[in-house]
């Protein structure tokens, strides 16, 4: 056969460029099909599905009964949540959550013993911090530098002075009176700010060219990583005052706070160091060859890239830290957990159900806070991945 004939016959060789067509849409699969492939694909698969479903239904039924159906929502004191034997009004086989207790004591759970006429200070701090941080955490809003400065430095200092007072017309409110959710959030927020800054400096120090600085940073990080938080808090609250002169009084809450911040900062330093190591050397080289100096290179080129890589890891550390703040009860400060505990055992509310209700409430509040942080980490992670993938190029390039 002639070659020319072959060419004519071979229809798979394109004479013209085929136009691009829109993607084919597959028809949506039925619910039945989804159930079949995901839950009942094989006998074992079906068995596991049924077992787990039974377990979920069992737990949900009992929990739902305790939390909602048998719960007490209204009431003035312990009698509504106690059985007749315990001196209350409920039947002897009753068991349910005592939401009336939470309702009656929520101000104390939030503000501790902070004087009621000054609670606006707490609210104001909260509103300002939330507003500023929403703008800081939204990636699309520019001026991250100024915003970060306000979030990490101005707000912690400002909120400390506003809450603590003792100047102008703001009366001093001793930190012994602080308590509840506001202490948890204040400690968490200020610790996050401090530890973020110190962590960054430690990470940079650990990679510094100056060997004495590097050595000190390594020593600091490795020492603190080897000490449990509980002992750091004890050192901060009991041993620290022994070292400083008597005239200087250092607030107890502040000491605990700094302890937590420094403890967290070494973990953050290690996370950031991981991020710094992931930035290729060529980035430094390109930047130095343009004549940029160390500080500029770090602030504008290396750290912004490193932070993006480690935000999920940092938030993971911060979630752990938020929950560890409850350890300050050992230095007799009352955070959310401590406050709700002492509230639940006060004479006019104590019943077998109140502590249980209290712990469920606390667990829920912590969960909401942590879940928010975790969702944010997830959102950032997705955004970074999107940023890394080569996007579909525009037609008119």
């Amino acid at each position, binding site marked *: 056969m002639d070659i020319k004939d072959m060419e004519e016959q071979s229809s798979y060789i394109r004479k013209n460029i085929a136009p691009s067509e829109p993607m084919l849409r597959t028809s949506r699969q039925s619910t039945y099909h989804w159930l079949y492939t995901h839950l009942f694909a094989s006998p074992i698969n079906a068995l596991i599905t049924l077992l787990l479903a039974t377990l979920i239904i069992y737990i949900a039924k009992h929990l739902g009964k305790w939390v909602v159906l048998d719960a007490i929502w209204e009431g003035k004191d312990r009698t509504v949540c106690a059985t007749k034997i315990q001196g209350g009004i409920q039947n002897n086989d009753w068991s349910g959550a005592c939401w009336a207790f939470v309702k009656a004591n929520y101000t104390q759970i939030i503000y501790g013993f902070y004087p009621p006429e000054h609670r606006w200070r707490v609210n104001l701090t909260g509103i300002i911090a939330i507003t500023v941080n929403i703008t800081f955490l939204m990636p699309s809003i520019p001026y991250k530098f100024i915003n970060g400065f306000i979030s990490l430095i101005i707000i912690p200092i400002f909120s400390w002075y506003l809450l603590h007072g003792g100047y102008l017309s703001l009366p001093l409110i001793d930190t012994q009176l602080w308590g509840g959710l506001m202490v948890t959030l204040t400690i968490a927020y200020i610790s996050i700010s401090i530890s973020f800054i110190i962590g960054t400096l430690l990470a940079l120090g650990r990679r510094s060219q100056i060997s004495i600085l590097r050595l000190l940073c390594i020593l600091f990080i490795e020492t603190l990583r080897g000490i449990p938080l509980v002992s750091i808090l004890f050192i901060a609250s009991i041993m620290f005052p022994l070292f400083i002169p008597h005239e200087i009084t250092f607030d107890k809450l502040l000491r605990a706070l700094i302890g937590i911040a420094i403890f967290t900062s070494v973990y953050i330093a290690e996370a950031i160091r991981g991020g710094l190591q992931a930035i290729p050397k*060529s980035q430094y*080289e*390109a930047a130095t*060859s343009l*004549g940029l100096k160390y500080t500029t290179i770090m602030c504008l080129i290396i750290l*912004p890239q490193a932070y993006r890589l480690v935000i999920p890891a940092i938030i993971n550390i911060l979630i752990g830290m938020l929950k560890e703040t409850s350890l300050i009860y050992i230095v007799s400060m009352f955070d959310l957990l401590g406050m709700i505990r002492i509230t639940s055992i006060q004479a006019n509310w104590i019943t077998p159900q109140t502590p249980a209700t209290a712990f469920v409430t606390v667990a829920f509040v912590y969960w909401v806070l942590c879940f928010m942080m975790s969702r944010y980490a997830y959102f950032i992670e997705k955004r970074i991945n999107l940023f890394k993938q080569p996007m579909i190029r525009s037609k008119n390039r």
Partner: protein
Amino acid sequence: MKGIKENSRIHAINIINVNKWLGKMHILRNMDFSVKFQERVALIGPSGSGKSTLLRCINALETFQKGKIIIEGTELNNTPKTIHLIRRRIGMVFQKFNLFPHLTVLENCTLAPIWVKKMNKKKAEEEAFFYLEKVKISDQATKYPIQLSGGQQQRVAIARSLCMKPRMMLFDEPTSALDPEMIQEILDLIMDLTKNGMTIICVTHKMSFARQLAHRIAFMDEGQILEENASDRFFSNPQHERTQIFLRKML
């Protein structure tokens, strides 16, 4: 001393007896080399012959143990001030572009003028657009490097260096990471940009590229220059045995 001063009038870069070791490896061996003002030199040679290292030593990205490098009469030593001065005079373009991925094309170009030259943002952007126009990529100014093709990224990298208005440019294998189709484009661009007489040293594996670009070609192997000659004579009549073998393989 007088000799050096006189040399510096005609020589943009003077490399005198430079030695570099990396561990036990002797990477640059008694290197003597000089580049005149407005001269374009291509460094060729097998991989690992020290071409890139030499280039990076000129820009103080790497240090050397012995010898002198004199750039426009300024001796390169390890003081931050000298290094800063020299880096401001020299632009460098890398094999893998090394753009800053978190900044847009425009921000990549304005970063150094703003922070090193303390130029105001508006003026820096105007100048950046001028150079982006020159490398024919100004329509992509708001995109991020990841959204561009390799050739486009390299053009941005060239524009970024030009924004600092360097007197010399070092190219470290500027086309090695590009599609063959893009190579000619980048070559034309470099030729076009350097018509006005910029001093250039270019490390390359592309012989045709070297031949078109350079006035003079130097062949390096094992940390030393084995042969250098004017562009056409180098290719038509290589003297050293190693050069002959190398060229036979490349062409």
